[in-house]
């Protein structure tokens, strides 16, 4: 009897259980305020998953960086930059997905690796380095797009011409498995899988935990700290570029303003999941739960048509409660 209660207490101490409870509380809210039964229909859940996927993808990269004791403020801007570049390549230049997607991914990796190199090689603080990249990438997005959305309509002297909608975007926008799951959600789950593999199964992942826990100790025990950091930011850049492609597909255009303040949502998702902002502790499954929590919160507020003021206050209150709840364990 004692043993069982101890085991239950130990279970409750786990961050995963805490994150799950937070999600269940939000789901209970959804059941309570179900907007005439809307909450019980699968479309609602499918659309929620589709909408939150881009944020979830960003949060995967953010989790990796935060576990290594860093932060990446540039993800929103890199998303905007790759959305523009992706639209340029796919819509305007009509390149096939096999060329356009790798090019965009390379761009994202290059952005991330640049930030990582500045942090590892020149010891610039992650906050500053990624802040600089955030500003720079937004500028690059505006420069490449000329301040306009990159869409199918192209202005010519004789009026507007319409280009074909790229197959890649068609594919990303599609729903599969009998119209039940959006393709972007699968991209998100794929990112979760890759991140999980890296963090929980591969050696560089263990290095990242070590660096986030105690950097000098990691360095002294022979962990290649610099390389691991570059890897972390490069992964974050890669995920940001994937999210950027999804963004362009869902918007059917590349908007240079896309992704403004998305980095804050990504950080909120990671923290609500229970990954520690001070580094060294956390995991990708926590982020998956955090993504669902934020996604359902937004959806429930939306189907009930709660006003903007109420939404902002409720979201703030729930983020604080969730984090306090996570911290409640010893």
């Amino acid at each position: 009897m004692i043993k069982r209660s101890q085991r239950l207490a130990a279970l409750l101490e786990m961050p995963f259980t805490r994150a799950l409870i937070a999600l269940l509380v939000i789901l209970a809210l959804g059941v309570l305020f179900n907007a005439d039964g809307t909450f019980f229909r699968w479309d609602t859940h499918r659309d929620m998953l589709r909408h939150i996927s881009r944020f979830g993808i960003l949060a995967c990269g953010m989790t990796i960086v935060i576990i290594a004791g860093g932060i990446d403020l540039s993800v929103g801007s890199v998303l905007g930059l790759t959305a523009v570049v992706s639209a340029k390549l796919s819509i305007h230049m009509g390149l096939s997905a096999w060329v356009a997607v790798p090019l965009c991914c390379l761009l994202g990796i290059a952005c991330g690796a640049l930030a990582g190199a500045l942090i590892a090689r020149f010891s610039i603080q992650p906050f500053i380095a990624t802040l600089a990249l955030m500003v720079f990438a937004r500028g690059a997005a505006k420069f490449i797009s000329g301040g306009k959305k990159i869409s199918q309509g192209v202005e010519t002297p004789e009026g507007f011409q319409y280009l074909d909608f790229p197959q890649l975007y068609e594919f990303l926008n599609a729903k599969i498995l009998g119209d039940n799951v959006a393709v972007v959600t699968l991209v998100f789950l794929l990112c979760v899988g890759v991140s999980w593999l890296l963090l929980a199964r591969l050696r560089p992942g263990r290095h990242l935990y070590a660096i986030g826990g105690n950097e000098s100790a990691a360095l002294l025990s022979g962990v290649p700290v610099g390389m691991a950091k570059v890897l972390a930011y490069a992964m974050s850049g890669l995920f940001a570029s994937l999210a950027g492609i999804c963004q362009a597909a869902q918007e059917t255009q590349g908007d240079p303003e896309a992704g403004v303040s998305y980095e804050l949502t990504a950080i909120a998702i990671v923290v609500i999941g229970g990954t520690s902002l001070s580094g060294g502790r956390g995991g990708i499954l926590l982020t998956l739960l955090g993504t669902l929590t934020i996604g359902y919160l937004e959806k429930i507020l939306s189907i009930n048509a709660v006003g903007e003021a109420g939404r902002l206050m409720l979201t703030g209150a729930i983020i604080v409660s969730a984090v306090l709840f996570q911290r409640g364990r010893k």
Partner: protein
Amino acid sequence: MRKPIATLVAVVLTAGVAVLAGCSKSAPEAAAPAESGAPSAPEKKTFVIGMSQCNLGEPWRVQMNKDIEEAAKAHDTLKVVFKDAQNDTLVQQNHVREFMNQGADLLIISPREAAPLTGPVAEAYKKGIPVIVLDRALLGEDFTMFIGADNRLIGEAAGKWVREKLNGQGKIVELMGLQTSVPGHDRHDGFVKGLGDAAIETIFSADMKWLQPDAQREMESALARFPKIDLVYGHNDPGAYGAYLAAKAAGREKEMLFVGIDGLPHEGRVYVEKGILSVTFEYPTGGREAVEYALKILAGEQVPRNVVLPSRFFTPENLAAGGELIGGSDAPAAAAP
């Protein structure tokens, strides 16, 4: 460690200088006519117009600058220098002072906020520099003229159009720009007035912050909740387009009509041409008119204090003819049914 840092700094500085050199090509010419003083100088002089835009992040404002640029291109006596305040009021205050110091002959300003910019603009105006205020008015009297459109009238025209199109009854969704913004309020209030006593019920309304992805999400909720929607009124075209994308994803885009506002050539009018929106109501930028009035002011002519820009609406039927004026009475060639 030393060397790489030095290299990095050198690279960054070189790049910075290159970018600045690229941007400032026009600066020396712009500053040149400073010494010649008063705008009433004889013909053949080049006039420098300083244009301060509050935020080039919005496509509508990009269009405003483009309209000014194109209108000014036709006159080789005009030279326009553009500045972007990037949504920062204090930066825009500096623009006014910079233009004053550089000896601009006339200022066009599309202010971010009224109160903080009233002072600097008054200062320039009192020094004898004419000021044209675009889109958002300033306080007081110390500027030459104001040019802007009326969101309330445009919203009302949209309401009347919807009332007529739906034969006075139906269920609609309203995707609002931002309830806390003046344009959002005006486009809503005008719309309600335009609907009048018709049996048209707004079954779902939400804030989409003028953003297409947010409009898409809100529309998904509306679609999930309501089995029948007759029309979606978006406070801007990206909002209406986001709603269309959501409806299309649900296979319900044929069931309803989509109405937007702004009518930019590369945005709303393209959506109308493709049959996505049933109508878009132009919110004119006033860029072209600003240049026309600037020419008059520089030539010493009298101009009105306050100009309300006429607005057009675009449907698939009248698009080719260049739209139709709202109110309809003095519509140009497009008046035929």
